[in-house]
């Protein structure tokens, strides 16, 4: 399988990429772990591919008490980042480590993955539970979009035409916090049948689910049995079974997050 023909441009700067992406039917290419399979299947047929791969948008920076993760930081780099081991941020590495496989984590990026917004993707749940913010850059400047406002539905986000995700901001949880991401995955695809991210702080818990609906779902009352949450069923996991899995992963993620918050687990 090979993609339909397209023209290719390797972006030299964010501005250059934005300029190129003004062309109709253009598409930004980051790691390509979601886009290229779709193009090979000819589900995606962009006329013009703008490769962001050489932009210097990878790595972690700390500013104003928060980490900013460059949009091109790979899942592999995130899974190994020592900076994200403490202070309630553990869910990020948990999640990154379980995405795809080593080869996919070597190429796939947090910015590309979040912007792709696959309804069964792992990181959107973490992004919502931990309150991550996406930095969207355009010709008009920069704006910040809370993860809870970013995911609008399957493969649909709040990014406007002419905007690129350049970084993901990670607010620092208060001392005494812990977080975790736990999923039950389809054994062949590795995608979550149900995945839960939990952040436990001295003030309370925040939980979000993925794999159960068109996007990440915040769980207002994780102890309440998830009866009021809409869950879809498919041939891999019917609605009832998937709701059961959702309860299981919520419980496990909360337990692990609590254990980390209390210093009983790493």
């Amino acid at each position, binding site marked *: 399988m090979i993609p339909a023909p397209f023209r290719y441009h390797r972006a030299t700067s964010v501005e250059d990429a934005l300029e190129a992406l003004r062309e109709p039917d253009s598409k930004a*290419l980051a790691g390509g772990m979601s886009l290229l399979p779709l*193009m090979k299947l000819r589900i995606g047929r962009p006329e013009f591919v703008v490769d962001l791969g050489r932009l210097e948008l990878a790595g972690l920076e700390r500013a104003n008490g928060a980490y900013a993760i460059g949009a091109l930081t790979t899942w592999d780099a995130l899974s190994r980042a020592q900076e994200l081991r403490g202070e309630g941020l553990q869910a990020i590495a948990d999640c990154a480590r379980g995405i795809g496989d080593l*080869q996919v984590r070597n*190429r796939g990026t947090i910015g590309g993955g979040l912007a792709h917004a696959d309804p069964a993707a792992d990181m959107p749940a973490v992004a919502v539970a931990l309150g991550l913010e996406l930095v969207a850059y355009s010709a008009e400047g920069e704006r910040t979009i809370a993860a809870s406002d970013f995911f609008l539905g399957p493969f649909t986000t709040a990014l406007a035409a002419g905007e690129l995700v350049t970084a993901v901001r990670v607010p620092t949880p208060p001392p005494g916090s812990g977080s975790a991401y736990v999923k039950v995955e389809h054994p062949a695809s590795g995608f979550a049948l149900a995945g839960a991210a939990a952040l436990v702080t001295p003030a309370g818990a925040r939980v979000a689910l993925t794999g159960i609906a068109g996007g990440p779902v915040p769980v207002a009352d994780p102890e309440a049995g998830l009866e009021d949450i809409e869950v879809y069923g498919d041939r891999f996991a019917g609605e009832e079974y998937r709701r059961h899995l959702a309860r299981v992963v919520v419980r496990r993620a909360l337990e692990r997050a609590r254990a980390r918050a209390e210093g009983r687990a790493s």
Partner: protein
Amino acid sequence: MPERIQLVVNGEPRTLEVEPRTLLVHALRDGLGLTGAHVGCDTSQCGACTVLVEGRAVKSCTLLALQAEGAEVTTIEGLAPAGELHPVQQAFVEHHGLQCGFCTPGMILTTLDLLSRDPDPDEAAIRHALRGNLCRCTGYQPIVESVRAAAEALS
């Protein structure tokens, strides 16, 4: 429209013409005659097309050749001189890490990425690293044993 690109393949600078849509695996196989990268599932699941780009295992069926322009690419052909075996290859032979051999180049190149960062991996780390490489005949137990033996041989 074809574009001319340069890659450093197995230590040698190579120039070839590709279309924007040419995948790295086809550039290597059809452009350079390096058929050790296999096309298995063609959907970035099986890992038979795994090569190293700048030392990191990637699925060359899911990478445009243009994305790799200028990069160092290592294929199974580049691990040892003709007629000789790299210690990881030798370990796979000695520990029955292959039968048909179709998945083997990918298994070995992923193993090299793993060992470059974790020279002494335990069984769980090996299985986690090889998750994206499917074997349909040998079974994973002797492959895991081969990787352990390779780690010891290289230590």
